[in-house]
């Protein structure tokens, strides 16, 4: 059996990739994907500990989280669509109308 720490390390790695992507990329779609990566890093943790403790609740949580993430992505893409219509781009550094 693979030790739990491997999963945790993998999860940390995925999370770090996600953060890196959010901070460095300009394209909103990519950023949204990176956010998904961070979310799934969390899910990975849940499953790993669920298996390690023999408790199914963690896996149930992950199913919920996936469903919620799907809905959230739908909303996020909807917003992006509007941003694109308004500004003709999905580069998040361009629109800055909500500033002081």
């Amino acid at each position, binding site marked *: 059996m693979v030790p739990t720490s491997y999963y945790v390390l993998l999860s940390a790695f995925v999370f770090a990739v996600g953060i890196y992507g959010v*901070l460095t990329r300009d394209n909103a779609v990519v950023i949204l994907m990176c956010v998904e990566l961070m979310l799934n890093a969390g899910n990975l943790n849940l499953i790993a500990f669920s298996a390690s403790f023999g408790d199914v609740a963690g896996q149930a949580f992950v199913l919920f989280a996936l469903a919620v993430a799907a809905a959230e992505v739908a909303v996020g893409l909807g917003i992006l669509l509007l941003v694109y219509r308004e500004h003709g781009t999905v580069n998040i550094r361009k629109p800055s109308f909500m500033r002081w």
Partner: protein
Amino acid sequence: MVVETVAPAIAIVPLGAFAIILFGGLLPKRRGFGGTTSTVIGTLAVGVSLALSAYLLFAVWTRDMDAFVAAEAVWVDGIGEVPDLTVGVLVDPLSALMAFIVSLVAFLVHVFSKYYMNDEGETGLSRYYAAMSLFTGSMLAFVFASNLLMAFVFFELVGLCSYLLIGFWYDRPSAASAAKKAFLVTRFGDYFFLVGVAFAFAGFGTFAFHGEGSLFTVAENAILEGGTVLGLSAGNAVTILSLLVLGGVIGKSAQFPLHTWLPDAMEGPTPVSALIHAATMVAAGVYLVTRTFELYALSPTALLIVAYVGGFTALFAATMALVMDDIKQVLAYSTISQYGYMMLALGAGGYTAAVFHLMNHAFFKALLFLGAGSVIIAMHHEQDMWSMGGLRKRMPVTYWTFLAGSLALAGIAPFAGFWSKDEALLSAFRNAANEPLLWVPFGFGLIAVVLTGFYTFRMVALTFHGRPRTDDAELADEGGFSVYVPLVVLGLLAVVAGFVNAEPLGIHALSDFLGASGFYEAASEGAGYVEEFEVSLVLSGVALVLAVVGAVAGFGIYAGKEEPLKEHGGAVTRVLEKKYYVDHAQVWLAEGFTYRLSKVLNLFDLDIVDGGVNATSKVSLGSGDAVRRIQTGVVAHYAAIIVLGAVILGFIVGLAGGWF
């Protein structure tokens, strides 16, 4: 007992009339009732009060009652040691007599008002009679007040009513300003009274005028036991309390230096002047001293100050009356002067003399004002005496009654004022033997007798004698029934009222009635004054001669004169006409001194207090302005800040958890 019902009703009836007129008379015309109904209601209510107070006076006089509280209600419940605050009706000879005087004068003034006010297409009649009823009612309630707090409340109400009535013709700027002045000046005095009320409660724990634990008994015991009150010796505390109360008295009774409101108050309708001067507002001040006389009697210093204020005011005001051309102004200054006599009498321990003069003055001064009102109406609201003259033949009833009032005012035997003024001087004269400092106010009072005679008969000569100086004076005409009745009733009283207590003739009914010997004893124990006033015929004679000399001189100089004699006067006349510049001094005190001082003090407020507040807001604004720059609106920046925050948070948590 009937008396217990009657006494509260005396004050309540006019107050009820006030409420009725207020709600009925001030409604829009179709729903309410007009001026005539208001007149009837107001006059009837005061008439009822007059009847009831006559009964009360009769009952107290014949049954020889002791003072008692006829009705009492708790206003605020006391807690622990603190006694209840009550509202009560105190019936004793003084309050019974005063209530009778007040309601009699008020009734006659109401009757006269029907002539003076109602004939001129006056629109504010309901307002007028509402205020008059409230005025009479609150004065009567003040007269019957059974404790200092209640007295203060109604004292203030009386002041309010005089404000309403002096400013009755509020569309005249002079009347509006006179009303304000009366209100503010008397309020300045009342401020001291209010402090006195608080002082009495804090120091002696009671307000009561009557009973076992009354203010006077408590104060007397405190002095006898030699205890301390609020950190002061009991004697000093009593003196301070008396002087604080005196502040209110000086304001209301228009004594120097707060007399300036009274001549200006002549802007009100003449019947109002009659009421204010004779029975209500101004009388309230002196009545307060007589009511608390037992307190003053405990303090020789306070008594002396009262005597000095009174004596000085008597002379001071009389000199100004000499040069006034407005008939009402002469009467105004004579009022101030006459109240000075009452204060002089009180300060010299002459309790009866003060009450006696208060009564006589109420009659003859109401008479003189109503007479002047009759003249003023006849002259179509001309008040300058140099425009009158020769009215004697055109207005016989007014003339003869006015003459009776003038003789009483001038203090010529056997008219009312002679007996009471004589007694006031006598009390000062007798006690000056024990207390040499009293010679000064006594001297003032004696000189003022000449001046009183002079200005009174100058007024009579200018108004009624000689030839008419204007067409109005030539065609002057007297009013009807509602003029004659008050004038004749008061005229008779001005002739006979003095015999109630004609000491030189051995009559002292009033003195016995008031139980004055008790007060003389109090004054002799407290201030070392004589207990018995031995009559001095020499003094009476001297005073009479002085009064006659003054009267003859005044009449002789002015009768038949056509033109004002101003140019002969010179500097003295100018000072008198400017009223000793007291008004100027007060205006300077307000504008030149207080206002400038306030402006300087305002700098502290502007620079330091406001400066602190403004600095705080400036710092907030500035820092906010700087910090808001991080709100760039770029999503990536927010994400970076969030991550940075999360890292720092994780670092801190780790540090606290001991991971490193």
